């Protein structure tokens, strides 16, 4: 059994290295992107191997799903083959080689340091504080109660990225498929119930087991990107829905902030949630952040502000 596990780890590592090499150094862009998506799928397996099912769920939906869709869209919009980067001047060459050598040395040093890393960890502290958080799953407790401020800032970063993308101009409509695909709309219709059911289940599960707002939002966002791809969400481009979209996008952040301020009024500490309200409030914040994350992932895909 041990031998089997080692063999699996070795295969996984070899696959990851090969796919990363392909993604970074193949001359063709398309194969680089496809290899990169496969890299994320193997990464999800690695998370399962390392006992991190929460991350595996989020990575599979966000990494392989949403990032892959974004990269393929960019690929379709960029001219094939030509480089869009700045061409390096001659005096930059030595600097480039120096940077590469430095990176190689840093990797060696990092490998050495990682090999003999001490592992202090906060596992005992989190387990001790778990009873005071109102949820029974460690990751959710840290995410939405113990270190809720970090999660709040992360939602703000995501909203800032949406503002940046939307400030670039009107949305770019998805190209119609080059060949007729009669199965695509039917498939997306069939998949919609699943794209709602799975996030609902993940949200409910989040309080006591791996799951929660991040994987749920990621799965729902992937479903939303499919909606945009099949042109099944024309309402999002309408001008009269602009205010509604803005409200929905910021709902996760707004509710989070309201909870934090309410906690300050009740207990005197920013982001302190009273224990008797914690399960309900955490569930509410989880639903709102999940929906916000899903909508923000869709918003990235529009590549511009709708309704202009």
């Amino acid at each position, binding site marked *: 059994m041990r031998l089997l596990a080692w063999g699996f780890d070795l295969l996984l590592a070899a696959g990851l290295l090969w796919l990363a090499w392909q993604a970074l150094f193949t001359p063709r862009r398309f194969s680089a992107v496809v290899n990169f998506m496969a890299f994320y799928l193997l990464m999800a397996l690695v998370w399962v191997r390392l006992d991190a099912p929460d991350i595996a769920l989020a990575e599979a939906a966000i990494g392989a799903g949403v*990032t892959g869709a974004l990269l393929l869209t960019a690929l379709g919009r960029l001219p094939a083959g030509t480089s869009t980067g700045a061409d390096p001047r001659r005096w930059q060459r030595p600097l480039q080689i120096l940077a590469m050598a430095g990176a190689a040395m840093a990797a060696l040093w990092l490998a050495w340091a990682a090999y003999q890393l001490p592992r202090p960890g906060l596992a005992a502290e989190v387990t001790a504080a778990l009873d005071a958080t109102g949820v029974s799953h460690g990751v959710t407790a840290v995410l939405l109660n113990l270190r809720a401020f970090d999660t709040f800032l992360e939602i703000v970063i995501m909203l800032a990225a949406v503002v940046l993308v939307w400030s670039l101009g009107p949305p770019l409509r998805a190209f119609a498929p080059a060949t007729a695909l009669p199965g695509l709309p039917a498939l997306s219709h069939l998949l919609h119930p699943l794209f709602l059911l799975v996030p609902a289940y993940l949200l409910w599960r989040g309080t006591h087991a791996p799951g929660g707002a991040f994987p749920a939002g990621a799965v729902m966002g992937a479903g939303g990107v499919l909606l945009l791809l099949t042109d099944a969400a024309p309402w999002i481009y309408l001008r009269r829905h602009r205010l509604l979209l803005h409200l929905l996008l910021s709902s996760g952040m707004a509710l989070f902030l309201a909870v934090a301020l309410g906690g300050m009024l009740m207990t005197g500490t920013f982001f302190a949630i009273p224990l008797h309200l914690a399960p309900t409030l955490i569930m509410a914040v989880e639903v709102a952040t999940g929906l916000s994350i899903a909508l923000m992932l869709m918003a990235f895909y529009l590549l511009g502000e709708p309704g202009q």
Partner: protein
Amino acid sequence: MSQFYAVLAAILCGMALIGLFQTEDLLRRILALNVLASAVFLLLVTVARSAEGIDPVPHVMVLTGIVVAVSTTAAALALVIRANEARRRREEEP
């Protein structure tokens, strides 16, 4: 086993950095940054496996990190696409 994955993360880090410096293609640079982010996440998750059980704090950092990474990727890709369209329009004009 943790150490095995930590070394893998270090190698991926080095590869991503070298890829980031040697390429001139903007899309490839975004890919390299994503690989680098994955390698750092891998290192964090291996650190989370301590003797006294699994530490949820690095897991949470990685979860938020994944979402921040996809936001960064989306913003960078949008900028690349817009820059490319502006360049194309400039070249079409006489």
